């Protein structure tokens, strides 16, 4: 199965195109495993609107096949930047409607957790939610983020709640994501383990979206919505 995936929930624009083996593992086939990312320069805004379709186009060109060869589109539904999510999902729904390729929504927190999980440890995925808060979801040591519903459901937490959330998942919980870097001190004091700031585990790669989507049934694209996790009214009352 060939899956085209992208994620625009964080500052990084991430796109991947992958042929999956048949079976439960959804391991990438060596034949086609392409990924492109673009990180905005420090202090500059994410370039999702400009970059997303450019990167998709480049990957399709490299693959030597067009939309006819794609079996599924996977789009990150966040949580993350509201505008980023809308650019990603508006694009995904349009590509799906126009090409006829089914669309799957993938949790960005789940995609972050997949490569970090293992070695018998719990995993907490954390995305910086701005305003001093964090979006989190967590999997216990016996769970598999690739297929399992997270024991700690996606939600927004204040810094003082973060250490307890990691500890509740299991001892020496592995914490990853740009929110893990942002709130490193809080987690470390609570006994969690965080890879070095520059570790790729903290950054979203759309390759995991391909694997997750390969194991999910396609849904009607109207049912795919961003995981905002915060009410729009909150924005209004702040304005």
């Amino acid at each position: 199965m060939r899956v085209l995936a992208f994620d625009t929930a964080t500052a990084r624009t991430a796109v991947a195109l992958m042929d999956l083996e048949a079976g439960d593992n959804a391991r990438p086939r060596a034949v086609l495993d392409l990924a492109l990312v673009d990180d905005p320069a420090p202090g500059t805004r994410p370039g999702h609107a400009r970059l997303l379709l450019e990167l998709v186009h480049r990957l399709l060109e490299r693959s030597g096949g067009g939309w006819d060869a794609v079996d599924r589109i996977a789009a990150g539904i966040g949580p993350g930047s509201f505008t980023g999510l809308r650019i990603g999902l508006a694009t995904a729904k349009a590509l799906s409607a126009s090409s006829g390729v089914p669309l799957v929504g993938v949790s960005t927190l789940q995609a972050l957790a997949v490569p970090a999980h293992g070695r018998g440890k719990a995993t907490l995925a954390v995305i910086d939610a701005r305003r001093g808060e964090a979006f989190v979801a967590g999997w216990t040591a016996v769970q598999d983020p690739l297929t399992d519903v997270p024991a700690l459901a996606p939600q927004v937490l204040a810094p003082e709640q973060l250490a307890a959330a990691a500890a509740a998942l299991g001892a020496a919980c592995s914490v990853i994501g740009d929110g893990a870097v942002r709130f490193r001190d809080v987690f470390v004091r609570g006994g969690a383990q965080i890879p070095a700031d520059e570790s790729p585990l903290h950054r979203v790669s759309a390759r995991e979206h391909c694997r997750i989507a390969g194991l999910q049934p396609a849904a009607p694209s109207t049912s795919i919505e961003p995981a905002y996790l915060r009410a729009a009214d909150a924005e209004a009352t702040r304005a």
Partner: protein
Amino acid sequence: MTGLILAIETSCDDTCAAVITGAGEIRSNVISSQQVHDRFGGVVPEIASRHHLALLSPVLDEALRAAGATLDQVELVAATRGPGLVTALVVGFSAGKGLAAARELPFAAVDHLHGHLAASFLRPAEFEPPFLALIASGGHTLLADVRDHGPQLRLLGQTLDDAAGEAFDKGARLLGLGYPGGAALERLAAGGDPRAFAFPAAERMPGLDFSFAGLKTALLYKVRELGEPEAERRRADLAASYQRAIVAALLIRVRRALKQTGARRLAVGGGVAANGPLRAALAELGVELEVPPPALCTDNAAMIASAARYSKALRFPAYLGLDVYATGAQRL
């Protein structure tokens, strides 16, 4: 062009999609007004943007269904690039680029104000340049010298502060009416004396630019001066006098612009064009007048499709890297 043009407009709080023919005939023009901003007294960008994403797919489906068309018949996709609310614009613009990209169709990035002018080009009116255009809406108030089909805009004047529609909304709010308040204020004004209070129309401001901020303040002070019971008793008079000032402010500059350009023909666009007293006053100017039907005056995608006929259609993949813009015009 023999095929159809599919256009999307999401620059403010209306989610719009339309299908027109290459000759400028409207096949469908779907507008989904959100009507969720009332309790905030204005458009909240985050709320508007969430609704755009939720509504866009059904609105697009409906535009194609109502046109009796499928994507296979679409030869050009167009979307509003700006000006407007960036978070709202990127929803429709991303969708437009995506729809075009998956089929390697050409794509036209349309300026919203060019769209308002191009509403007049649509059939059956086919009001052709040259003409003077007055665009007055909740987000824009301007006069343009339309000598050709665009996209270059020859701006003669524009508002220096509030838009005319914004003045209506803010006045309506002061008088205890809901949002958007233009139509409610007009209804209330119908039972009042437009000469009861003398509100300023910025008559002494020379040139063709508009200003409505002083008018809004004048109404606020008048309401305070009268006191609550008296202001309540004379609401209709206040509304009528306030409306008269807005219409006068528009008329003064339209007359000046007609004189300055020598134009004998006038097209009006924007939501304020639905205002009865304004239409009546414009009809007495003695020039050939074109006021498109309401669905083409307020924000809509048929006008964006119309403008797309005269905009540069970019071939795949030249448009993939385009982004929206919040202010200004014509970045192409």
